[in-house]
């Protein structure tokens, strides 16, 4: 890999490592994401995807290594790095005693945006994501899918160059899901870069042009989609890499109802 400061990829992870007690969650993980690409981060449960993204976005201090966003070190120059990325975390509470509109406005102002811009973009985002009717409802009363959507709106409001999305389409209904896909595609077509984690192979195959597969904290494969697939379906390739758990013929034999 090249020196990240010379010709910066949009996102460069270098030797990220995190250990919780005895368990190594992420182990010496390095990864480059070039501009204008949409990277799907795949891995079984507990592979370290969320931990990696937390260390990338400044939420969790790595034991070693760092992340660079457009040449800014997340852990040395957090203000600069954070200004350039929009983040949708997973499994973290939102300030849910605000209404959807208030939360969007709050996020925009925290980002230091001018008020007029916050107001007009909030309206656009709420319309696009079909949240206009719910804009005066407290986020605590939103459904899981609506929370994802308002979270995505918060990640988009400052028009970042890099989007980091943890499970962006989980619990989202098919109609909104298509809207989100369109938003992400046009974001990438216009020079933006997306990193998203998912368990759904179909989603990654249809949306992403690059794939990274992690298991037990290590990067197993990484590159353009077709290169990683190597002629197989992504599902087969994933199972081949991660190790499928093949059930013998006698396992769960009692489950056969005959």
């Amino acid at each position, binding site marked *: 890999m090249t020196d990240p400061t010379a010709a910066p990829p949009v996102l460069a992870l270098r030797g990220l490592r995190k250990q919780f007690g005895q368990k190594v969650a992420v182990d010496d993980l390095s990864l480059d994401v070039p501009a204008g690409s949409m990277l799907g981060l795949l891995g079984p449960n507990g592979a370290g995807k969320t931990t990696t993204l937390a260390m990338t976005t*400044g939420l969790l201090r790595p034991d070693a290594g760092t992340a660079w966003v457009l040449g800014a070190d997340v852990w040395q120059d957090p*203000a600069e790095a954070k200004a350039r990325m929009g983040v949708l975390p997973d499994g973290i509470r939102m*300030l*849910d005693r605000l209404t959807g509109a208030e939360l969007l406005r709050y*996020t925009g102002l925290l980002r230091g945006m001018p008020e007029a811009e*916050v107001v007009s973009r909030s309206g656009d985002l709420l319309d696009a994501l079909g949240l206009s009717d719910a804009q005066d409802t407290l986020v605590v009363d939103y459904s899981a899918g609506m929370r994802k959507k308002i979270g995505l709106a918060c990640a988009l409001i400052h028009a970042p160059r890099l989007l980091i999305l943890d499970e962006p389409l989980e619990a989202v209904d098919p109609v909104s899901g298509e809207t989100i896909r369109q938003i992400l595609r046009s974001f990438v077509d216009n020079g933006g870069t997306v990193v998203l984690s998912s368990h759904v192979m179909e989603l990654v195959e249809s949306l992403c042009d690059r794939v990274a597969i992690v298991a037990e904290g290590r990067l197993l494969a990484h590159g353009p989609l077709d290169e990683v697939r190597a002629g197989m379906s992504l599902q087969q390739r994933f199972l081949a890499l991660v190790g499928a758990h093949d059930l013998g013929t006698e396992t769960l034999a009692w489950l056969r109802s005959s």
Partner: protein
Amino acid sequence: MVALLVGLRWRQLRHQLGRNPWMIVTLILTGLIALGFLAALSAGLVALRFAAPDAAVTALVLTGAVIVLGWWIGSILVSADDSLAPERFALLPVTARSLLPGLTVAAATTIGGIGTITALVLMLLGWSVSLPALLVAVIMIPLAVATCVLGARVVSGLLGRWLARRSTRDLVVTLGVLLAASSGLLLNLGIGALTTVTDVGGAFGTVADVVAWTPVGAVFGVPAAIAGGDLLAAGLRLLIAVATVAALWLLAQRLLAARLVAPIQSSGGGRVRSGGVLDRMLPANPVGAVAARSLRYYRRDPRQLVNIVMMLLLPAIFVGIAVMNGLQDEAIGFGPAVTLIPAINALLAGSIVQMSIAYDNDAVALHVITGVRGTADRAGRLLGFGLLAVPVTAVLCVATCLLAGRLDLLPASLGAALGLTAIAAGSGAWVGGFLPGRAPAPEANPFGRGSAGGVQSLLAMMIMSPITLILGAPALGFAIAAIWNPALGWVSLVLGLAIGALALWGGAVLGGRLLDRRWPEVLAEVSSES
């Protein structure tokens, strides 16, 4: 099934303790407090037993009734997080009939249940005034426990649907905390009222006699009647007690069966009015946004609403006590010193600001992700708090000065109250950077298993209090001196405002720098399970 459910309850508790050492500390503290109560109970019973055996029976009936009522009313507060809630069994092929015995025994073997049983056993000390009463009381213990547990189930079952609405849940929590906070004053008032009754013992006796015939006290009325030698009354009361338990059992089973097929789902409160005034009033930058958000949370988050109401209630309680003592002792009166009472709010101010991130819990991740400057976070929270605290403090100062009839002391009162509050808030902003504390999770019930924030908050308090007292000494000193020379009140006001402003600035800058360096660690601390 019984053993299975009891085992489940205890395994859940053990896992919780294993995950969080702070919770063990809290549990031990709670246990010590409970032991203290039990010790006081037994000491009181022993004293009564030998000093006034007749009054002992009255006291036992009343104590028992209070325990039963405590379970019934307490169930409203604790029902929000029941690890053995009926909903959890909705998918399993079990019937209410098979579940209820296990759930009842499981409830009786919780910490509260064991404490209750211990208290009932200790009460045997009092029943030992007569041997037959003692024997009957022993037999009545299971019946009493069943009355407590089943009654609690029925009350929470009946109110369950109503409590599942977020707005009512918030209301109950708020009222409950306020009631607990002002219980001292209410007790004081109650005792005050009692002293006007000439025959205290007689009054208690009459009440106990009535209570012994009600479902709440009948269980304890039986041995009481035996002790009095009235076998007919004992039989009738036994009938009432048994009928109560039987009725509660049937009702609990009906409610449980209904819950198993129609689980209660927590629902929300609908739309809210979005106060656009706040947004127009405050600057459209990170500091203003954080301030506006803090103010919204003071109103919408019941845990914080309680804090704010306490800022009015705490001084009111102190004034109330001062007035009551003043009425009793005309010579001293409640003189000009009451004008200093509003300064007591400094105690709350420090904690409110210090704990503000803990109340956000892991939602504060938004501040980390957006890269908001630490100083902006601190300044915003201080501004939001100030917009509420300054008017409240001013009103309290004017009110106490009017009460004392010394409006000339207003500058001194303001100087002490505003100065100390500002200094405490500033120190809270700094301490919050390294000791953010822990609050119960936003959706958790503050009355549920004790929150582990207590110990950390205590530590923070031990740092903030000396700072506040030392930096606030000039403002407070001149305010006290102003009682004799009112002109010095102006000195207090100027010093209080100046030092307060410095403390606010220092707290925001120092606390902000800490946050800039320690955001991930602070996030991990406030979001760890408690």
